[in-house]
């Protein structure tokens, strides 16, 4: 017998979080019940695997938040940044002026449009 329960989105979000938590507890319980560990004390535990190198070559043992942040920033936004910088810094001050006035004009048009929409549609 299949049935569909209609809820509001917030209740659904809470219920699905609860269901996620139930499964999380289940996975942890399976791990606790079945997992066997190699070695018992801290001294027995093995060193980090770094392609055969000793871990002394590392400056950081933990990943820094900077590394994660810069990975995104460098790889995704670098092209956008380069494009903006190249279109601004041509060596000609008039290019810079043109670019800035273009943006300013765009923002002005946007502002006027929004004001007009508000005036027509009401707040």
């Amino acid at each position, binding site marked *: *017998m*299949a*049935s*569909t*329960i*209609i*809820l*509001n*989105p917030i*209740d*659904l*979000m809470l*219920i*699905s979080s609860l*269901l*996620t*938590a*139930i*499964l*999380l*507890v*289940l*996975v*942890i319980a*399976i*791990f606790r019940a*079945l*997992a*066997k*560990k*190699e*070695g018992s004390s*801290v001294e*027995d*535990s*093995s*060193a*980090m*695997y*770094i*392609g055969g190198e000793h871990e002394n070559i*590392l400056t950081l*043992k*933990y*990943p820094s938040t900077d*590394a*994660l942040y810069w*990975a*995104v920033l460098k*790889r*995704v936004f670098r092209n956008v940044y380069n494009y903006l910088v190249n279109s601004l810094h041509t060596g000609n001050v008039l290019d810079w002026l043109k670019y800035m006035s273009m943006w300013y004009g765009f923002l002005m048009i946007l502002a006027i449009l929004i004001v007009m929409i508000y005036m027509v549609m009401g707040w």
Partner: protein
Amino acid sequence: MDIALAIGYTLFSLLIFPGFITISAISLLVEWFVRKTVARMQNRMGPAYVGPIGILQPFADFFKLLLVKRYIDQRYSNPLLAVVGVGVGIGALTAGLLLFPLSPIRFSSPYDVIVFIYLMILWPFISLIIISLAWPNPFVVAGVSRAIALAIVTEPTLVASILIPMTIIRRYPDITPYSVYYTSTNVWRLWIDTGFGIPQYIATLILLIVSLITSIIAIQSKILLKPFDIPEAEQELIAGYATEFSGPIYAFYRLFHDMKIAILILAITYILLGGPAPFKHLSIEGFLTLLAKYITLAFVVSLVRGAFGRFRIDQAITKIIKYALTPSIIALIISFVM
């Protein structure tokens, strides 16, 4: 419905069908299917020894890793945190199944696509970060930073391509807006309904096909299959963020990875292709149609994996932006205007 009965059905759906046990089995079967088809494309045997034509090999791998192998602790590691990360991912993906018509008890609400995004996209992504921080290693850091960079373009693509059929389907006033369940049960009408005029029908078909293609590219990138597997490029990064995993933790990590493949393909089968439509679930034709659609999508994913070489990270990001993100956003805007 009686509240005790509802709780019982919910737990049954969550834990047995289509929940944890069934979806784990399906995920391992999908892993076998992808491995076997890619192996045949590359003139290899693929899994061959355990079970008929090697079909039980992923099960054997999973249970051996879980029950026999030991995990190796490491000085800076936190194994429990890694298990929490994987468990959150598995839990969120499995709970997401209760939004689909496949489940005996279905949860639905207007705009429940937000819950879909929360369970299928947000939590697996956060769990990836938890997993990587639990077991630090230079390869792990490099792998996860690449995975995050890919996710920045992949996740919006997936969201946009799933929103396209939900946006077009607003033209039927009787359907709850942006609901996974109602879109899944009614999307077949979009594929065949010429009642709004032929130009409108052709435009709808084009939008749906764009959505299908971009969602397959997004899945390929989200589950790190071939052209987009630079975050775990084994010649360079050993195994990315799974480098230090061993024993039961690796078993759960692999299960999580297989679940992502199985559940995302299932989501596309339902949201874009309508599941068993035009038949009912509980009929032979319906079951066979659902199976055929599912296997076709899994085959396409394996075909792409077998046909491509690996992209560099910058190539991968540029290709996704060019061939998936931009078309899906343009299609989404058109479907809003239509």
